């Protein structure tokens, strides 16, 4: 028997050998041999046809973020390849493992401006973890196995395989597939040195006002239990970055909230009171540090990260441990002494009380039954009603900041949001991908009216695959986050932020999706209940107060402990609340 297969089949067999069961994509000329072969493998490989390639890649991101698995995207060349650029950049920023396969013109035509030729490797090198062009079928197994290894080891990221059409068609000998475990020029899991661990343990043992900042890397490492053990043993308060939310349950007594521009007062204020910051799997984004010159002036900084290039990039560290967070934490726990920091922990109470009184009360607990609901209030109520283990997916803007803040987390991998790139339009497809990877979890997607319309075509994907995501549009007829900045920093000049909206329930109806609009506070609870009880997808179009603002806030360029409670009031711990 002839034991030859096409390059296209070699790719698909490679995907299956890597454990892939779902791919997101969109067909076209330069990838047709692969799509033709997919037809034969439709029992094993579930292909999700999104309505736009950007949708495919964000869906793959949502899929990866919720499940830790590698998201796979298949698109054609040229315009399809350029349509995935935003997602590649997003996934690079947020350390999300993807393998993105783009069709490419035949190798003989490369460089000739052939139909739908784009220099994909050239464009994607700065925004991917690795980009490789497969020009011959014999390279497929090598490239695919490397791609999966690179994407989901060390610091995860997106890998691009630019697959020339001739290589898809060439016949090669069928050979068993070997997963890649080693690349000479790549150290995904660096050796963790005992001396580094001891040094850091000593610093922790000597500290009296320590604070842990837990980042996305803790989740990537699967180190949530170790994080809790360390914090509990040494009695250290834990804050998280936005992407580190849900590394610790919201109601853990040591969890003190989120740091950063729109974080909670307690951890931000105390960043500049702490004598030690232990940063784990986070990269000191400027949204986190505010003015770096005024950041944590009293503290030693210990930075634990798997990516050496993050050390001293934004914040100088006194000590670093280069390695996987789970390994580092596991090994450092025995070296850290039990301690009590009662007074230090108590110092979070005043800022917490001020935030409750002066910010949260107004953002979440208003009682006018006829009034328009507020964004934070909707997020809080949905979270309470959806209960344990639900996943929050957000778009970008006020909807994002207020929902991540007021949602409650019980288990890890519960926040899917575009952090580093802040990609509007990310949310809807990411929610679809998240639901597909975690069908048993309730997926609640919050979006603004702006972001919703950036990828609204993906309602078609929801319709086709009956994906039961709960879509909550926080509809303020404004590009709210930009509006907030215009109000605060641009003299109220609302340049190009008011937005006329379509009739969302009518759109939902056209896609066969259940929907309703909420216009008054008194309608909210019942509507949320209907949404969550409904078996399929649901759109809850909530008209919210356009004057809603995200507070607390540390304006750009300020120290993290300069915190606005509202437009007129700065947090002052000495004043009576």
């Amino acid at each position: 028997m002839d034991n030859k297969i096409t390059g296209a089949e070699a790719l698909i067999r490679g995907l299956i050998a890597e454990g892939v069961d779902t791919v997101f994509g969109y067909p076209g000329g330069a990838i047709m041999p692969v799509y033709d072969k997919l037809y034969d493998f439709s029992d094993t490989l579930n292909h999700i046809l999104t309505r736009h390639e950007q949708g495919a890649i964000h869906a793959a991101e949502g899929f990866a973020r919720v499940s830790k698995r590698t998201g796979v995207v298949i698109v054609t060349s040229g315009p399809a390849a350029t349509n995935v650029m935003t997602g590649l950049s997003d996934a690079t920023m947020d350390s999300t493992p993807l393998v993105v396969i783009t069709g490419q013109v035949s190798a003989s035509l490369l460089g000739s401006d052939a139909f739908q030729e784009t220099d994909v490797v050239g464009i994607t090198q700065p925004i991917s973890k690795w980009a490789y062009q497969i020009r011959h079928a014999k390279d497929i197994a090598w490239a695919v196995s490397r791609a999966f290894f690179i994407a989901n080891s060390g610091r995860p990221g997106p890998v691009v395989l630019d697959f020339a059409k001739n290589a898809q068609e060439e016949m090669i000998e069928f050979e068993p597939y070997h997963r890649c475990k080693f690349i000479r020029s790549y150290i995904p899991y660096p050796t963790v040195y005992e001396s580094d661990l001891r040094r850091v343990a000593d610093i922790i043992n000597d500290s009296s006002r320590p604070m842990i900042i837990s980042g996305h890397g803790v989740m990537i490492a699967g180190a949530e239990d170790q994080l809790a053990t360390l914090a509990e043993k040494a009695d250290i308060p834990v804050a998280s970055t936005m992407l580190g939310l849900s590394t610790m349950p919201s109601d853990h007594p040591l969890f003190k909230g989120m740091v950063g521009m729109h974080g909670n007062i307690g951890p931000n204020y105390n960043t500049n009171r702490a004598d030690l910051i232990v940063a784990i799997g986070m990269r000191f984004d400027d949204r986190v540090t505010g003015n770096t010159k005024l950041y944590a002036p009293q503290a030693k900084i210990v930075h634990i990260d798997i990516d050496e290039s993050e050390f001293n990039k934004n914040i100088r560290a006194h000590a670093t441990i280069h390695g996987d967070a789970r390994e580092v934490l596991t090994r450092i726990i025995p070296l850290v002494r039990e301690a009590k920091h009662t007074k230090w922990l108590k110092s979070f109470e005043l800022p917490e009380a001020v935030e409750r009184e002066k910010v949260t009360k107004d953002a979440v607990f208003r009682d006018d039954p006829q009034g328009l609901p507020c964004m934070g209030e909707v997020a809080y109520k949905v979270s309470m009603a959806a209960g344990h283990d639900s996943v929050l997916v957000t778009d970008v803007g006020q909807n994002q900041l207020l929902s991540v803040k007021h949602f409650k987390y019980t288990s890890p991998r519960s926040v899917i949001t575009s952090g580093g790139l802040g990609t509007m339009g990310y949310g809807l497809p990411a929610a679809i991908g998240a639901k597909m990877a975690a069908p048993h979890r309730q997926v609640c997607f919050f979006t603004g009216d702006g972001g919703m319309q950036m990828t609204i075509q993906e309602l078609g994907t929801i319709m086709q695959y009956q994906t039961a995501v709960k879509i909550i549009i926080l509809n303020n007829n404004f590009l709210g986050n930009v509006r907030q900045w215009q109000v605060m920093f641009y003299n109220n000049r609302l340049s190009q932020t008011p937005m006329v909206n379509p009739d969302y329930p009518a759109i939902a109806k056209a896609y066969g999706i259940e929907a309703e609009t909420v216009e008054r506070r008194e309608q909210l609870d019942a509507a949320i209940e209907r949404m969550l009880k409904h078996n399929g997808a649901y759109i809850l179009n909530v008209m919210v107060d356009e004057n809603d603002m995200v507070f607390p806030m540390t304006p750009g360029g300020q120290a993290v402990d300069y915190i606005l409670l509202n437009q007129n009031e700065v947090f002052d711990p000495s004043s009576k609340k």
Partner: protein
Amino acid sequence: MEQPTLFTIAVFTENHIGLLNQLSIILTRRAINIESITASRCLIPEVHKITLTCYSDPVTIEKVVKQIEKKIDVLKAFFYTDDQIVYQEVALYKVPTSRLLDEQNLEEIIRRHSARILEITRDYTVVEKTGHIDETEALFEELKRYDLRQFVRSGRVAITKSPIEYVDRFLAEQEQRRQNLDRQ
């Protein structure tokens, strides 16, 4: 602001297509100009060495080199100041032969600069000078007076003074890792 320093960056890579682009975009993002660049094989089989020079400051250059090293196909990257390396460049000069013949002191110039003549035709003469940039530059200044027609200088090549060969050590460690993985 402190004076920028000239740094030499040495990058040891796998020999894949597109590597230079990967390096140069890292520098471009930080608006660092590449002063010179060379690429060649090195002692280790299948490993390529790219040597480039640029002006920067110690803090930035360290970040840049870490970002270069992070690239999957890069084995190791280092940066040096001039005192840590032995380095050399080569320059070629094309001058009209007639002008040279007219000059009394041509021989003196060539001798003084320890330059060599590579080729003489009726029409032109090609002179080669190997040395540091100030030396090739000095010859350039003198030959300019003789209707210099072409001038070119190579990128820097450099070898470290350190007694430790870090790339060898890295490869040995990696080989150990590979064997450990195979055993698992």
